[in-house]
């Protein structure tokens, strides 16, 4: 078995459910969790995660509240924070203070969907950033990653926004990237079935599953969400 990473939009359907889900995840073989901070204009996300962002914002979720939540939960898996750039750089007490707190909380890295490799040097965020690689990323860009300090590389496995469609498995390219980069390679976007997990594990170090879990949060009443998430992950891992 290789790594499994879960994407959880914080505050969807509400903060209490998020906390319960995070506890359940700790009982499963989950390597890391990406905590999604809501943003008003999530351009890299499809309808499922967009709705989650909108509802979380309505619930009053802010980066400050997420940091407080992280400080209260005790879990074994690694925590990453996923957020669009504007929310991080506009943190009210400044990005340096944000970085200091992320560091103290033991957060392992930031995942910023609207920060491409080419602009990473143009923002002042002194914290490990997760670089993205897409099926169309140029080889020389991919090689640049080897000089960076990064906890893992996020491979976007299709052309499209987040969602549960997986029509273009770029397995050959993933395999090639794996040979090029000297870091862990995790594959995300559109992974929702056990066969896909199995296929990706053959060529990369792990999978990231988001929309498939968020769909469960959409479908079931709050009280059932943690157990349904557990069930879904067990099914995905049955390979």
């Amino acid at each position: 078995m290789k790594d499994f990473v879960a994407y959880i939009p914080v505050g969807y359907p509400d903060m209490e459910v998020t906390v319960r889900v995070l506890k359940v995840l700790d009982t499963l073989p989950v390597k890391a969790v990406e905590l999604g901070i809501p943003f008003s204009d999530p351009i890299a996300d499809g309808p499922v995660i967009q709705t989650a962002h909108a509802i979380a914002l309505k619930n009053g979720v802010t980066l400050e509240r997420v940091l407080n939540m992280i400080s209260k939960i005790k879990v074994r898996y690694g925590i990453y924070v996923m957020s669009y750039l504007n929310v991080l750089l506009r943190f009210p007490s400044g990005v340096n203070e944000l970085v200091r707190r992320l560091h103290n909380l033991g957060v392992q890295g930031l995942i910023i969907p609207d920060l491409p490799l080419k602009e990473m040097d143009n923002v002042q965020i002194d914290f490990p950033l997760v670089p993205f690689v897409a099926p169309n990323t140029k080889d020389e860009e991919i090689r640049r990653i080897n000089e960076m300090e990064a906890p893992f590389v996020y491979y976007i496995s299709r052309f499209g926004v987040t969602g549960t469609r997986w029509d273009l498995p770029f397995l050959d390219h993933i395999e090639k990237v794996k040979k090029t980069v000297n870091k862990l390679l995790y594959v995300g976007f559109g992974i929702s079935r056990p066969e896909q997990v199995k296929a990706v594990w053959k060529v990369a170090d792990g999978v990231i599953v988001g929309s498939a879990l968020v769909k469960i949060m959409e479908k079931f009443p709050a009280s059932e969400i943690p157990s349904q998430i557990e069930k879904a992950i067990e099914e995905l891992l049955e390979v």
Partner: protein
Amino acid sequence: MRRGYEKMERYFGDYGGQFVPEILMPALNELEEAYDRVVKDESFWKEYRSLLENYAGRPTPLYLAKQLSEKYEARIYLKREDLLHTGAHKINNAIGQVLLAKCMGKKRVIAETGAGQHGVATATAAALFGLECAIYMGSEDMERQRPNVERMALLGAKVVPVGTGSKTLKDAINEAMRDWITNLQTTYYVIGSVVGPYPYPVIVRNFQKVIGEETKAQVLEVEGNLPDYVLACVGGGSNAAGMFYPFIDENVKLIGVEAGGKGPNTDEHAASLLKGKIGYLHGSKTMVLQDQWGQIKVTHSISAGLDYPGVGPEHTFWKETGRVQYEAVTDEEALEAFLELSRLEGIVPALESAHALAFVKRLRDREGKTIVVNLSGRGDKDLESVLNNPYVRERIL
């Protein structure tokens, strides 16, 4: 005044850049390379200029508005972009970019639209070049600019309603970007203003600068010197950038007018340069209306084309360097100017353009000055919403 970015660069001073998902970077590089290629290709410009002239109706007149001039004791010229095919300056950019899309071998074009003018212009250019076309439009804007929705459909474009967020221009851009991310190989995204990631702000400004170049020559011919003031409305900022750019190194006062909605000191306006903070929206580092947590605000303007929480990064640069002065006028001031131009000059302006006109009244030292106002579009699309406006009904019906 140093221009400093004549050659293509990713930033205007500190603003601009390419803050987009990694998956879009190859597409932006492809666009940059294609644009660099056509810039050097005389046959591209020949075709572009010929279309602007024979299809779109350039050059547009520079009209000395006598009644208006008399009333405000100044020499007020209107740059008549409203007379262009499809009714606004947007066609200058749409023809240029769709031609570029064609050169790149793309089969499909998409665009966002607020007022519907850019959507109509893109649908028109797509019809002309035989490309498939989809236009994203906020559902609130579809309501208030209905004639343009019908025109786009007539031209063969698919109009996709966007019901997320504020259901206006910002959300239409989000949705168009998502489409582009999904259909990169076949699709060209025709951005309608000087916003978005580099190289769009440069490309759009360069396709619009014909407005300022013509104005400069025309005003020199009739006045013998350059104007004292040049005014344009600012939504994303394309008509203003196209008008201002050729005047940037000249001794001419440039004023961009934003949508003040119910008042720039209320919470309901779209005055990004006046009231925004530096942020990151739609691929660009620029002035953005946002709350204390970096969430983008829902804006308000009576004019769908100005109802946007961001602004082109070049304007942010011009504001910071002090080269251009930015102001805001309210919905009511714009409506008043809309009525005034209709009654005094027999010209019905777009609500967007009415914002630029409205500021003439507030120009304190206008007496005896030469003032050019960019009339970026005509008001046919706005008749329904203007005539249903209580403020207007009170006055004229």
